[in-house]
Every structure is written in C-alpha cells, then in structure tokens.
C-alpha cells in the first residue's frame, strides 16, 4: 500500500485494476496532470519509478525567475496529489508494456519490492541508524552518503524506509531494530494488470552525464561539480550548512560556470539547447552572491537564453548584482596542485583568442537528455520518438500533447527541454486532451 488512499492496489484482492487514466511519472508535470484530471472526476493511477514522487523539482534550491523556494512550492502539490481521493500512487513501480485493448489500453505494471512494509513503517528512522553500510546518496547527487536501509530524503512522499538490496549485506541489524517489524526480506515483486482509457507520459528528463565531456574533468578533478549538485548545496534541505568545495571543505571565493555542458555540442551527440541551464545558472549565481558575499562568480556562455516572462529582467538583475558574464567557449579544464582549476577558453569578444583563467570551483551547467525508458513502454505498438529521442509531438502546433498513439499524451520534459512553468502548462494541456479523449469514448 503506497499511500493512505482508500483504493490502494493491495486492498483490491485481484491484481487486475481499472482506472480512467494512467499517469507515468510523478514529477511536477505528472502531478499537475493527475490533479487536473482528478479534480475533473477521473480516476487516476500514477506510476512512479522512484521510491518517492516529486521528480527533480523537490530537490532544487530556489527557482527562477521569482526565486521562491522550490520545495515550498513542490511539497503542497505533492501532498495534494498524495491525498486526492481520485489518485492512487504506486511508487517504486515500472510499466512493462502497454497494449491496445478494444477502445482502451491495457498496461502491465511491476511493483518492485522495497523490503519494508509500507503500511507498518513509521519512518522513525531507527533502521537507518543501525545499518552499517554506507553508499553514495543519489538524492544528493553523490555529495553525501546514505545507508543501505534508508529513508530516501526528508521531503519524500511516502516518507518511509526502503532497503537497497544491491548494497545490503543482509546483516539483519535493521530487521532486529525496527520497532513495528516493518522490514521483510522475503518481499517479492508484484505484477498488476491495468485497464485504462488514456495514458499520460510524464517521465521527465535525464541529466547529461558530466563525465562524458572528458575535457572538463568531472569525476577526475574534485572541484569540478555539476549544477544539480550546486542546487543541492544551495537548497534549504542542503547536505551541509554552507557551500563548500569538495577537495578541502573550504568556502570557494572564485566560482566559474560552464554553460552548455553537454548541450549545443555535436561532439557529445546533443546538438540542441537545453533551454533551462542559462537561467538556472544565473539563479545559482545570484544565490551564491547572497550566501557567500565575498565570492566572485563568472559565467562562461555562448548566448544567454533568458527568453521567458521576467527572465531577461532576471539576467539584468544578475549583472547588476555583480555576476560576471564572459562570452567564451571552454576548451579544456586543468587541475592545479592546490585543487584550483585553470580554464582554457576561446574568448569570443577578443577575436577568439585562447585565454586562461583560474577558479577555485567550477560548476558544469549540464544539459538535459531524453528519458529513454519511454520506448520500453510500448512493445507491440512502438511510440514515435523525434530525432533526439524525445516523445514525438504528432501535431506540434495545434495539439502539442498528442503522441503517435491514440489516447496517449505527453506532459513536461518527456517531449523536450522545458522549465517548470512550461512543464506545468504542458501538463495542463495533456490533461485537457485526455479528458476530451475519454469523453469521446462514451
């Protein structure tokens, strides 16, 4: 049972379930689409691959261009989604296959075992304390560690534990310590067969793996981090009390941003622009100037793409706060003995000369890539993808949420790069299309 809704899957004796809409992905787009449909009276099943819903947004610091706290906007939505009587959530679950079934669709969904009984766990977190295994914490993008028995993160929904069986040594410490005896190593995966009328794909995006851009030394040089890590360092739920550079825990005083890392770059196979990284970098720069007033922040860019409502004003605000902008393309980053970094760049404003600059922390503004899971959802009737592997918008201008399969719609970054406002709008569009489609079946 994944939440305290009345109709959680386990309470229904057979594993055959019926819903109006299957929403795949519980990020901001999936939540918004589900809520719209639920408020319209439709029964929604949300399938989330991760241990918690929330997507990327729940982990961000503040959001451009209004600088409101991301978690503070995200948590009420998450809570509203989790509480809505018309929405059932299956976390840690994946869609195996979706087939046409008469007028509607049939979906096979697998719920993976978390080895903790959701209805018993209180999130206390004694298991976490007792577990002897420490591994990298994926929710802090490797900045900190976590246990093998763990609660994913503070704002998780559901906020209950899970056992990372890959890393678990089966020592049993957690099992013995758990007050309500919630830990159950004998749990197995469960299969569900769903009949639905419509499907919304909201599986979001992947971050560009920074290590793929070898010239920049991510993974090799300690003081080269990526932007999602910086957003974590700046978030109210941040792992440390301050922004510290990884090599020596010192506060950085000369930070560089490298825009377009993994975007607009054929050498890594991604020619398009990621649309959000200019803006989130300017956001982080402003937050850094607030958190570390003595710090210099330099942004190396090709073009600053501040195109949305209030964005260019936000860019100007960044400039006036003292963020330095240099139009230059970083060719290579080298590490010095003290952990500082030398950036070699083509200085466009000076005739394209190669120039060097030293910084003590480098943030790679990584781009976004399509989530490749989507093609696996439709084994018998493959869904069309665009040349970049995003879900193809069949009627891009007039019905942007339509896909190649009737009754299947797309929301948020599954169809291409976009920021939170655009993801929310696109989720609204997908829910309108799904609602109209279901009505047309009657």
């Amino acid at each position: 049972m994944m939440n305290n809704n009345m109709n959680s899957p386990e309470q229904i004796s057979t594993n055959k379930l019926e819903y109006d809409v299957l929403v795949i992905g519980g990020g901001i787009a999936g939540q918004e689409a589900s809520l719209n449909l639920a408020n319209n009276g439709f029964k929604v099943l949300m399938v989330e691959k991760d241990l918690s819903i929330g997507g990327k947004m729940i982990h961000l610091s503040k959001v451009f261009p209004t600088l409101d706290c991301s978690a503070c906007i995200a948590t009420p939505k998450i809570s509203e989604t989790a509480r809505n009587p018309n929405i059932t959530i299956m976390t840690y679950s994946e869609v195996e296959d979706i087939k046409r079934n008469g007028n509607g669709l049939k979906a096979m969904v697998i719920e993976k075992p978390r080895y903790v009984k959701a209805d018993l766990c209180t999130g206390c977190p004694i298991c976490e304390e007792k577990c002897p295994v420490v591994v990298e914490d994926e929710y802090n993008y490797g900045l900190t560690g976590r246990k093998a028995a763990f609660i994913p993160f503070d704002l998780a929904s559901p906020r209950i534990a899970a056992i990372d069986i890959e890393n678990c040594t089966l020592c049993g410490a957690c099992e013995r310590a758990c007050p309500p005896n919630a830990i159950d190593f004998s749990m197995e995966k469960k299969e569900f067969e769903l009949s639905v009328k419509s499907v919304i794909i909201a599986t979001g995006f992947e971050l560009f793996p920074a290590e793929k851009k070898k010239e920049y030394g991510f993974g090799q040089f300690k003081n080269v981090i990526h932007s999602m890590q910086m957003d974590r360092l700046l978030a109210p739920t941040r792992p440390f009390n301050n922004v510290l550079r990884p090599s020596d825990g010192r506060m950085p005083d000369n930070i560089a941003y490298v825009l377009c890392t993994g975007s607009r770059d054929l050498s890594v196979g991604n020619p398009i622009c990621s649309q959000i990284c200019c803006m989130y970098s300017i956001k982080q720069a402003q937050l850094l100037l607030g958190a570390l007033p003595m710090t210099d922040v330099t942004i190396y860019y090709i073009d600053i793409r501040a195109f949305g409502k209030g964005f260019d004003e936000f860019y100007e605000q960044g400039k006036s706060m003292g963020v330095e902008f240099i139009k230059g393309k970083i060719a290579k980053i080298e590490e010095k003995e003290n952990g500082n970094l030398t950036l070699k760049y083509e200085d466009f404003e000076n005739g394209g000369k190669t120039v060097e600059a030293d910084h003590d922390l480098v943030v790679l503004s990584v781009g976004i890539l399509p989530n490749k899971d989507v093609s696996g959802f439709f084994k018998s009737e493959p869904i069309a993808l665009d040349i970049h592997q995003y879900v193809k918008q069949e009627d891009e201008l007039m019905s942007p949420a339509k896909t190649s399969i009737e009754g299947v719609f797309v929301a948020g970054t599954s169809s291409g790069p976009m920021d939170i406002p655009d993801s929310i709008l696109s989720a609204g569009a997908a829910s309108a299309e799904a609602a109209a489609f279901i009505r047309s079946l009657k």
Partner: protein
Amino acid sequence: MEQEKDFVPKILVFSTDKISDPGIDLAGQQHIHYSPSVYFIIVPCSAGVKPRWILRAFNKGFDGVFVAADGTDCPFSADCSEKTGKLVAYSQELMKKEGVNPARLKMAAVCSVCALPFSNHMKNFSKALSGLGNIQSEKYIDPEEKEKQK
C-alpha cells in the same frame, strides 16, 4: 520631545492577504532586513481595517500603526486607496481626541513585489516614531483643543 536611547518603536502593520502581505513575504524571501519590532496582522483588504483596532493598538502600547494598503492593485475595488485614506483620516481624528499624535498612524501602498520599498517605509517610519518617542510618554494635545482651552 525626549529622545530615549535604545528606543525601538513597536509598529503594527495591517497587511492584506493578496497584495501587500506577499510583498512583505518577498522582503523576507530576499532576506531584506527591517526592524524586528514590526508585527503584522493580515486582513482581506486595507479598506477593511476598523478604526477601533487601530485605537486598540495604541492603547495597548504600540508606538505606531502602518496600513500597508492595496493601492491600485486592490483585487476588490479601484478606489481602495481612497477608501483606505478615509478610514485612516477618520482614525486620526479619533486618535487626536484620545491624545495620540496622528503622525503615529501612516498608510502607504505596498504592492506584491514591493519588498525593498516596504523595508524603506519601515526604516523611515521607525525613525519618525523614534522622534515622537515611546507611546507611554505621549503628551500629544490636539492643537484645536488647546485653542479651545485658551
């Protein structure tokens, strides 16, 4: 009027749910500082503040009351400023009768993004109130009354 050392005037702000309170929230979000002796009561609209609440604040010991008005952004009425202005003027009349300097009541429009202007208002108003001193030592006499007594 005596100038007390370390006197930090206590200010009560009536802010509005949709317009000025979000502006004041924004000041906080941007970590813009103002005096910690500034307190807030949210009302739906600045034109809905009752004069008796204002008088109550002075009677209980607030040194100043500030109405953070909706101004032209008011979601309810285009002439909100005028209406708020009227109730402020009326309250000032009542204050005079009770021997409270009308300068202790101030109104200004604060919009939903007026973070910095709001903190400036607070700075200036605090300064003005410091000049007027603690409400406990208020010796204000209505000039008209004075005239009559002569």
